[in-house]
């Protein structure tokens, strides 16, 4: 069974089809890099996979279940364009809050553990609004990994990250892949993505123009997929 299966998904904004009959699969333990120009539908597709919005037609399955089922949501970790943590709360309060919402046995202990893993243990009681951009991004990474999700959905995860946050994220993603977790990440930064990705899918105007394993040629020339299957 695929970890993530996208089965003939359409999404309309008014009459405009943002996604058109998209079919993709990601096996358990694989990393799928979702590439495409701005407006190709990458974020829309990731939000549908995460269960934030429903497809107009078609369906998404996470380990055979719908994304909005409670148990499925427990298996998903998401990093979007925003950091999804509260400025008015401290780092520890933020992670403890999400630990409670995910029903962790000891939310505070898990929160402290992830603050340490992301290098934020010294500022655990500091309010997020006082954090630098890099610290906020590391906290967002900690929030996404806190509940040990089996499927990680990352929307442009390397964009605007500082060097330390990129290093933290890449280490965590490699560990996650080694543990058999599934990663789908949308990106414009092909080189960083292809270091991790076992598979690549190209979205072109809402359609899956290419989907297949990542090859050494792609790693050597990240523009290859665009040149062959994109708009050029």
């Amino acid at each position, binding site marked *: 069974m695929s970890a993530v299966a996208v089965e003939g998904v359409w999404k309309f904004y008014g009459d405009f089809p943002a996604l058109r009959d998209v079919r993709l699969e990601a096996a358990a333990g694989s990393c799928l890099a979702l590439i495409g120009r701005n407006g190709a539908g990458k974020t829309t597709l990731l939000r549908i996979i995460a269960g934030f*919005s*429903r497809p107009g037609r078609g369906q998404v399955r996470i380990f055979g279940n719908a994304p909005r089922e409670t148990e499925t949501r427990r298996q998903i970790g*998401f990093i979007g364009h*925003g950091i999804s943590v*509260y400025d*008015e709360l401290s780092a520890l309060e933020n992670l403890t*809050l*999400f630990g*409670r*919402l995910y029903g962790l046995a000891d939310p505070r202990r898990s929160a402290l553990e992830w603050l340490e893993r992301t290098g934020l243990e010294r500022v655990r009681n500091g309010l997020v609004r006082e954090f630098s951009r890099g610290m906020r991004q590391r906290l967002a990474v900690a929030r996404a990994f806190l509940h040990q999700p089996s499927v990680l959905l990352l929307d442009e995860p390397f964009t605007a990250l500082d060097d330390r946050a990129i290093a933290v994220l890449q280490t965590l993603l490699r560990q996650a892949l080694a543990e058999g977790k599934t990663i789908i990440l949308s990106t414009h930064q092909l080189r960083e993505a292809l270091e991790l990705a076992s598979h690549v899918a190209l979205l072109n105007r809402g359609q899956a123009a290419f989907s297949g394993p990542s090859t050494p040629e792609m790693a050597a020339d990240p523009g290859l997929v665009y040149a062959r299957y994109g708009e050029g």
Partner: protein
Amino acid sequence: MGFLRQVLVIAAKDLRAELRTKEAINASLAFALVILLLFSFAFDPTEETTREISGGLLWIVFAFAGALVLNRSFARELPNDCLDALIAAPISGAALFLGKAMANFLLVLAVELVSLPVFGIFYNVRWTSQFGELMLVLALGTWALTVIGTMFSALTVNIRLREVMLPMLTYPILVPALLGAMQLTTGLVAGQPIGPDTVAWLKMLIGFDVVYTAVSLVLAETVLVG
């Protein structure tokens, strides 16, 4: 985690965030007090007039001051895309809605409980003679305001003119509950307990709360995810 625990976690989060910034509660409280003060100077009502208008005046103040709290309810989730993280969490839309409604209820109630003594002083009214029943009506009317307001706060959160849209959508639906609360409050502030002639308003207010709470809980997931 049980449904009730999820509700309490969301409510505690909202209260903690609001009490740190005091954005909504300060604006709401200031608005309520200024309106009460302005009306008392503008009309200089007699004791008889005050008795007649007390319910209407108080609930107009509560409804408009409450809208300032309700507007922030889901708007608070926007700056860092926090709503995505809440929707992604394994909690039901109903628990998320109810948690937010509870936090709003407590914040609006706090504004009302500060406003009442001020009303008593400015208008020279002894409003405590039916204190228990007045608190019951206050709680029921406030729940009606917050349950409708929280639902429309969720519906309008992504609209550019949400500050305008929320009152425009909330008040028309709220009219029956406000009428009931106004009628009951006028009598109670005048020292008359709820009797056979006013109990129908109380039943209507309870019915309104039950029906709209149930409808909101059923619709919450659809409103949040589509």
